[in-house]
């Protein structure tokens, strides 16, 4: 697949984020005294088992309904509101099945009542390696290709903050590795929060790494080498093993 020239980096500078507070769901606390600092212009990975509130953190940042009560504060380092500057990618591709690839990529523009920039949309679709598929519908694309479309849409939106909710979890191992590399490359310069339950993914991609468990949030030091890290480097594998044990409740 030929690579188109890289798109312009996020047009607005990407801020650091901070989320502090308690969250209660159905009268029971999901987390209390949380203090999550997300560094600017880099990947922060939030690793944890299911059901500890990882997705809730994302939904709070995005300003979506959470079905519980949040008592705390969400702020950006530049003081501007957070929820309006966010692009989002989830495990399910979130594509409208009745729209073709271009239609899905330009959905945001259409909802804002703007004329979609089709030239840019096509360039971005080419950038994620889907040049020959612009007028296909999601049903005739593979899972990996659909996530590429979702990634192209994130790039089209060109937001400084990108929230990723296990976007590669449903892909096969090879496609997952390819998508991780592609996403890391094209999202450079943005503030990215990746929620995942896969230690290997967290080690591979994170500039910063946190484990969220029933006991709360723990910062974990990442290997000295910058991401994206080689899967088979000794320090990566060693780190991955430590995270795996930490996830199972042993010290990291």
């Amino acid at each position, binding site marked *: 697949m030929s690579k188109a020239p890289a798109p312009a980096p996020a047009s607005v500078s990407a801020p650091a984020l901070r989320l502090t507070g308690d969250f209660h769901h159905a009268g029971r606390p999901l987390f209390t005294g949380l203090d999550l600092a997300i560094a600017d212009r880099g990947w922060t990975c939030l690793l944890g088992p299911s059901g500890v509130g990882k997705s809730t953190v994302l939904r709070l940042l995005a*300003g979506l309904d959470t079905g519980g009560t949040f008592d705390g504060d969400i702020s950006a380092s530049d003081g501007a509101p957070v929820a309006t500057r966010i692009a989002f990618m989830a495990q399910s591709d979130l594509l409208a099945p*009745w729209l073709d690839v271009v239609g899905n990529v330009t959905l945001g523009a259409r*909802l804002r009542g703007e004329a979609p920039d089709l030239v840019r949309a096509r360039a971005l679709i080419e950038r994620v390696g889907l040049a020959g598929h612009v007028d296909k519908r999601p049903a005739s694309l593979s899972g990996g290709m659909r996530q590429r479309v979702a990634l192209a849409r994130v790039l089209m939106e060109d937001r400084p903050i990108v929230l990723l909710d296990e976007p590669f979890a449903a892909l096969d191992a090879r496609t997952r590795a390819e998508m991780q590399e592609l996403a890391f490359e094209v999202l450079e310069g943005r503030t990215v929060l990746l929620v995942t339950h896969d230690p290997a993914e967290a080690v591979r991609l994170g500039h910063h790494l946190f484990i969220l468990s029933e006991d709360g949030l723990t910062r974990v030091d990442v290997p000295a080498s910058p991401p994206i890290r080689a899967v088979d480097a000794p320090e990566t594998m060693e780190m991955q093993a430590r995270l795996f044990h930490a996830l199972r409740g042993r010290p990291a």
Partner: protein
Amino acid sequence: MTANLDTTASLNVEAAAPVDPAELRKARRERVDRTARWLLPVVVMVATIALWQWYVDAFKVPHYILPGPDRVVQALIADWSMLWPALLITIAITLGALVIATIGGVGLAVLFAQSKWVEMSFFPYAVILQVTPVIVIAPLIFIYVPSKIAGLLICAWIVAFFPILSNTTLGLNSADHNLRNLFQLYGATRWQTLRYLRLPAALPYFLGGLKIAGGLSLIGAIVAEFVAGTGGLGSGLAFKILEASYRLNIPRMFAAILLISVTGIIIFASLSVLSHLLLRHWHESAIKRDS
């Protein structure tokens, strides 16, 4: 699903030059299936008609009790000048009712989708209209509504609108939850969410309801004509059936029933084609897959 696409491509290649005996067998089986799909119903129909003709001839059944297929066809040809205009009237009432049922059903569903309170308040009454047999409401309608055409339309509408309302309501509420979140993230207005998310998501459900409503509006139109029961200019096929039964003209009854059935089949087939055309690119129900 990439594999799927690849299979389609390779199938096309192999269809051009079949080499593998397994592929050959598969292609032959598909050919047989395709032929059987239309041949078997035709064989059953021909056999039934032949049996019917034989029975009538062999037992010398009087034609005012059971006419043979030959007499039905004769009646169809001889009375065509009377049956055709009546059929047109029935079709007009049916399609008119279907259009109003579509507008009314979708309109009410959209209204229900705007507010749970509206849905809670009015849905039970839609159910009441649906479960009360139209044949007992129709006489009242013909008393209160001065125009016969309007009365017929109202009766057929009452029968036909419910499946559209019920299916479209279900469809509007079935839009993917995650996609709704995405729309919220994009700051979509209520109207945009309806226009770009909930209505497209409801389309397959609506089309399912429409297929049912097509048949029901024909039934509603016929039942209403039976109840209205007045002849003269502008009477539909149902009245021709009533009239023929008074005169013991059984072949003409059969001919008229045949026309109604064929009309129903054409309506169903057209709506199925419409549904396929609208959904074939994206909806699970209409996408062709191998394996």
